[in-house]
Each structure stands twice: as structure tokens, then as C-alpha cells.
């Protein structure tokens, strides 16, 4: 239902500890509209800098648009502290294991779907390394009804870039993708490059997957990040957010 100025609106936003991959307790930031629903849900997979202010704002943004939204702290097993200190430690350690992230994302989806106000639909959204993780989580589980990969670097990987924590290039799971994919990218990005996005697109076509890619001119990595003046591109970010919400509205419902 379109918003009217005489509508009641409210949200709850708080830290919640839930069972993650392997049943480990993980910290999450959880925001949802007040009311009985039914609400669709979205799992937000944070970027390399960590479980930071931008991701908590984005989680509330989804809640304000009618979604129960949850952002797990993928780094919470590594340490607790200032987000940038924790992020620096993870950066030095070469990231967190892909398997663990997929497990955490699927666990968040189970948590959301089990709520009385869930409409049963769950999407996954991520930017930067979180875009790559969102794609992996969508391909490697049956937990998601739609996935938004925003400039996820490392979907296409060279063999020499594979590590113990990242043993398989996400593109190799494309055949298993069970849901529609939205991809937003910048023409000037180097991770992913437009050439890597084209390789990913070919793989999606080859397997007959439903996808919608937009390559924005004049944008590089992180063009939604209003707190990073060199990266932020207002025009592309406004259009990109519209595409994200239109995509999730189509495949999950809400608004």
C-alpha cells in the first residue's frame, strides 16, 4: 500500500544474537516494521570494512520500506571491538571462510522466515565482498528468493586467487542459482571490472538464469557510500536504490 501521511509507521531496531553457521551464536543488527505483517525479509551481507554504520543505516532503510531486515556481523567470531579494528584484523587474515558466511546467511534467512510476521519470502543483499558473499549464499543454499549483488568483486576469480577460505570462484556455482539476480556495477570499477561482469553475464545466460544487470557510467566501486565522498555518485546511487527496491518488491513483496 502506498505510504500516506496519515499512516502510522514505526520500527524496532536492535542488536540480536541468533544461531549462525554450525549453531554458533552470532551478533546481528535486526530492524523490522512494527505491526503484524506479513512482511518480506532481507539479509544484508556487510562489506570488507565490516559491520559498520553504513550497514546499520541500510538495515533500517529496508525496515522503513516494509522489510524485516537483518545484518549479521560476519566478523564476530574473530574479535569484538571498534569495527575498523576488527575489520583490520580480518583484512590481515585474508577474510572469513566462504562456507561460514554462507552458513550465517542461511541461518539469518531461517530466523527471518520463522517469525510470525514473515510473508515467507527472503532476499539477500550485499555490497563489495558482501555482494560476492550474497551471490554465493544464494547459489549455495535454497534460503533465498532473490539476490542483489552490488559491485561484488571476486565473483570471477583467477586460479591463483583461490585460498583455503575462498576455495571456489562463485561464478562456478552459477548453474545452481535458484532465484532472480540483480547486479549493479560501476564502469570504472576494478573489482569487478566490466570485463569480469561480462564473463559473469555470459555464464548466467549459458545456464538460463533470470538476471538484471546495470553498468553505470561515471561510477566506480562503492558508489552508494555517501560517507565516502570520492566513491559516492548521487545520481547513480538514487537510481540504484530504486532498482534494488523495485527488484525486491517484484520478487518478495512489500511497500
Amino acid at each position, binding site marked *: 500500500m502506498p505510504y500516506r501521511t496519515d499512516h502510522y509507521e514505526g520500527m524496532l531496531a536492535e542488536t540480536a544474537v541468533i544461531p549462525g553457521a554450525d549453531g554458533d551464536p552470532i551478533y546481528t543488527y535486526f530492524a523490522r516494521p512494527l505491526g503484524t505483517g506479513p512482511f518480506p525479509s532481507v539479509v544484508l551481507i556487510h562489506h570488507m570494512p565490516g559491520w559498520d554504520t553504513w550497514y546499520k543505516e541500510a538495515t533500517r532503510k529496508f525496515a522503513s520500506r516494509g522489510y524485516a531486515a537483518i545484518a549479521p556481523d560476519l566478523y564476530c567470531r574473530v574479535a*569484538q571491538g571498534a569495527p575498523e579494528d576488527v575489520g583490520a584484523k580480518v583484512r590481515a587474515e585474508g577474510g572469513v571462510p566462504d562456507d561460514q558466511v554462507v552458513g550465517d546467511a542461511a541461518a539469518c534467512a531461517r530466523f527471518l522466515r520463522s517469525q510470525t510476521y514473515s510473508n515467507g519470502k527472503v532476499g539477500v543483499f550485499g555490497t563489495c565482498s558482501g555482494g560476492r558473499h550474497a551471490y554465493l549464499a544464494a547459489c549455495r543454499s535454497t534460503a533465498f528468493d532473490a539476490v542483489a549483488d552490488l559491485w561484488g568483486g571476486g565473483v570471477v576469480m583467477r586460479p591463483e586467487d583461490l585460498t583455503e577460505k575462498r576455495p571456489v570462484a562463485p561464478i562456478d556455482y552459477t548453474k545452481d542459482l535458484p532465484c532472480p539476480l540483480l547486479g549493479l556495477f560501476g564502469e570504472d570499477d576494478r573489482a569487478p571490472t566490466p570485463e569480469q561482469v561480462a564473463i559473469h553475464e555470459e555464464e548466467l545466460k549459458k545456464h538460463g538464469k533470470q538476471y538484471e544487470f546495470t553498468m553505470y557510467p561515471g561510477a566506480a566501486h562503492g558508489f552508494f557510500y555517501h560517507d565516502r565522498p570520492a566513491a559516492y555518485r548521487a545520481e547513480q546511487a538514487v537510481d540504484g536504490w530504486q532498482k534494488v527496491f523495485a527488484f525486491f518488491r517484484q520478487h518478495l513483496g512489500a511497500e
Partner: protein
Amino acid sequence: MCTNIVEHTPLAGSGKGATGWFKVAQAHVTYDHPFHVDLEHALNIDFTNDAAGVDARVAVELTLDSAKNLAAAILAAVDRAERYESGA
């Protein structure tokens, strides 16, 4: 982690971080996303003591040119210091 450019070295010395002085035990050198400098990627150096907690960290985030200048300045000072110590 986004670029896979990570180097590590053990160190001996002290550093002053957010909670005061601590023994520096290692440096992690990465070319990756920084937290503060407004660049997509930076040459990041974290002087840390991993055993003392994540806040035992002195961080710098540098442009590549300034990182090269820093490396050259360190090597020049070390060279002069070694000559000073040897009496040459």
C-alpha cells in the same frame, strides 16, 4: 581480502595506539580498502600486537607514492643508523 595483497612481518618495538603504548609484535601491510582515507584502495600498515587485542593497533593508510617515500625514508635512516652504530 578484496585484492589478496597482504604481507606480514614480525617487529620488535613499541607503538602508541588508542589505549596507550603497547609492544608492537608485527606489521600487516595490505593494499586494500582503507577505513578513513578517501581512496578505493590504499597501502595500509597496521602495527599490532595480535595477542594483546584488536585495539593494540597503530594504523596508517597511505597513497602508493607516499608509501614508496616512507619505505625509502626508512631504508635511508636505517642505513645511516647502521653506519652511526658501527662508527663508520
